[in-house]
């Protein structure tokens, strides 16, 4: 199968390329344009005039709900939603049911993903058995089964000694650890940012310190163990500072933020609108601005969807009893492009935050358009606006606060492993 993408603006953050040219794909891989020449006989041609051609998006954190919560969503629906959003690779946290703490689970999820022939699936292995934070998983075996990174989902490892040993052992096998900093005690039963809104609405709050305390602890352990670590999500200004400082000190650490945290704040909760119930919580406007600055500086390396599809009932409850999360696969690209419109970053930088950077964090060879690389490509029209209607989502989750908003960017074609994916 040979594909020629004609006349698009090719943006490849890995090489820094940004120019209008044709992109050639053969046998599932990107072809050197100098070698393709006139004799390249494409089986199919895509006209990408006035469109952007970039690596397929890589989402560092998306819950597909399968296995374990198929009443909310399935891999089939969610991987189709990913493709609709221009996402060609998703990393799945280990908190499925059963938990991804055995090679069998890794194989099962990868195989099921491959069979669906939509986006690629990268299962994240559990750091501790059952995510209980007590004993280490067979990390080397998980790596052999195909895990490139390990994490503990939203279940923080409370025991600092176990945390330290998990980091040491993971580093032994050159595995990255994904950490979600949230102190169990300070989080309590909180559901919103501790601040003006929690005080006005009388909702149990999660102080900023719940994140900062846990992050400080994790950074100290990352420093002593030398493990390569990725902070899956940060939500406040102080965390941006902490990561900035850690990077300046040479720690081997990266960080991501969810797309919605870059656009929303606690103010949007209004009269208990449960669509804004997320974890970590939406924080103050100044936190949001600091996160944007972090993304623009590169202190925050990647933007993820933190996709969490829910059935309707999950959000039809009093705020604190509703389930946290936003179905974000289909808005990740648009929300990232919005940062360009808002003057936060340039278009190539924005694209790097959802392609090349997450690929490096996951240690996978996609996310670039260099010759020989796997041909995962996203083609989108940046100037086409779309009115978000959750009724049109491919995801089974309709829980998006962006319902009814006009967002920039429309995906026109997605290629995975050299094949145009239809949804």
């Amino acid at each position, binding site marked *: 199968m040979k594909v020629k993408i004609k006349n698009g603006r090719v943006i490849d953050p890995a090489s820094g390329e940004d120019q209008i040219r044709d992109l050639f794909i053969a046998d599932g891989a990107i072809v050197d344009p100098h070698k393709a020449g006139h004799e390249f006989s494409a089986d199919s041609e895509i006209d990408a005039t006035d469109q952007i051609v970039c690596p397929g998006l890589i989402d560092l954190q998306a819950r597909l709900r399968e296995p374990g919560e198929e009443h909310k969503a399935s891999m089939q629906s969610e991987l189709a939603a990913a493709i609709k959003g221009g996402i060609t690779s998703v990393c799945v946290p280990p908190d499925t049911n059963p938990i991804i703490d055995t090679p069998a689970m890794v194989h099962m999820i990868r195989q099921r993903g491959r069979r669906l022939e939509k986006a690629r699936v990268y299962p994240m292995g559990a750091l501790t058995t059952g995510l209980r934070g007590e004993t280490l998983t067979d990390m080397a075996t998980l790596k052999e089964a195909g895990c490139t990174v390990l994490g503990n989902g939203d279940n923080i490892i409370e025991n600092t000694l176990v945390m330290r040993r998990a980091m040491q052992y993971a580093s032994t096998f050159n595995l990255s650890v994904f950490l979600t900093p949230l102190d169990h005690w300070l989080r309590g039963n909180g559901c919103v940012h*501790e*601040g*003006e809104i*929690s*005080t*006005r*609405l*009388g*909702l*149990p*709050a999660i*102080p900023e310190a719940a994140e900062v305390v846990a992050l400080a602890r994790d950074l100290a352990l990352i420093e002593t163990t030398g493990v390569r670590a990725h902070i899956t999500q940060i939500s406040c200004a102080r965390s941006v500072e902490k990561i900035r400082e850690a990077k300046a000190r040479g720690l081997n650490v990266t960080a991501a933020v969810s797309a919605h945290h870059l*656009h*929303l704040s606690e103010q*949007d909760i*209004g*009269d*208990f*609108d449960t*669509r804004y119930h997320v974890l970590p919580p939406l924080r103050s406007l100044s936190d949001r601005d600091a996160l944007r600055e972090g993304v623009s500086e590169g202190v925050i390396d990647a933007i993820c969807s933190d996709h969490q599809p829910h059935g309707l*009932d999950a959000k*039809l*409850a*009093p*705020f*604190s*009893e509703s389930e946290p999360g936003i179905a974000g696969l289909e808005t990740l690209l648009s*929300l990232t492009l*919005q940062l360009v*419109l*808002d003057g936060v970053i340039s278009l190539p930088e924005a694209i790097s935050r959802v392609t090349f950077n997450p690929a490096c964090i996951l240690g996978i060879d996609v996310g670039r358009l260099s010759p020989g690389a796997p041909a995962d490509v996203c083609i989108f029209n940046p100037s086409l606006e779309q009115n978000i209607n959750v009724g049109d989502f491919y995801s089974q989750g309709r829980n998006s*606060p*962006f*319902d*009814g*908003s*006009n*967002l920039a960017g429309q995906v026109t074609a997605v290629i995975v492993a050299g094949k145009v994916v239809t949804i």
Partner: protein
Amino acid sequence: MPIEIKNSSSQPLQIDSAGRLLHFLAIEGLDRQRLLQLLDSAAQFISSDTNVRKSQGSLLAGHTVVNLFFEDSTRTRTTFEIAGKRLGASVINLNTSRLSTRKGETVLDTVRTLEAMDADIFVVRDNSSGTAHLIARHVPPHVHIINAGDGRHAHPTQAMLDMFTIRAHKGDISKLRFAIVGDILHSRVARSQIAALQILGAKEIRVVAPATLLPTEIEKLGVTALTDIDKGLEGVDVIMMLRLQLERMEGQLIPSSQEYFRCYGLNQDRLNHAAPDAVVMHPGPMNRGLEIASDVADSDRSLVLSQVTNGIAVRMAIMAELAGMNKE
């Protein structure tokens, strides 16, 4: 250009486009004029003239009021029941633990079932903040919701009866200084009182509690936060005590009831810091010897019993307003 978010709360829930009161969910969002009008209309229901009462006896005739209490309450539920009955409505009391509803039926299921039985007004109490709002968002337009307390968020009828009582005993609220003392963190009463006092233009509002019981950024609600009760009471005209729920304290928010009473309990000495004619209020039930000394609670400065009586009149006025009966 930032994204324009379509927020569900951009459309106020409590008031329709013609300015009519649809639900009574929170003090926030109501204006001074409406609060005063409700308080004035409550005054009509307080009259001891039996003729006035009789003529009101049919205001809500044919209406059904459902007291839907997911959380225990005797005082509030009873006053709502009396208020409904005095207006001629049929009143149904439903005390149901949400532990049982949570297993299968959701809050909304329960409400829809009752709605199908033709209820007109739901009086809702729940231990989660926002439950009354959630229900109000999902009922048809002819059904009205009164919030009788939602979690830590709001208890607007309590705040209204407090305002009524203050006006009756102390006159114009805009000339008075207030201190709200106790567990501000968990108190829906305090939040609604603060909102009502703000809207009615109180001269000064102070909140007094140890730091563990003061919510973050409480100053943004337009109050002064103090941890020293003697300073907090200095020169105030009205002291509004809150009930301390010991079972919530876990030995961490306050170490012991003895220490709390020593540091924050309202006794005669402390009362002397306030203005000479200051009055003391409490939403009840009182913990004597914990937040308030018995001699203060029973003194002629205490308005506690008058608050209860006024509660019925205020709730009658709110029900009548929601049923559209206050217009003539």
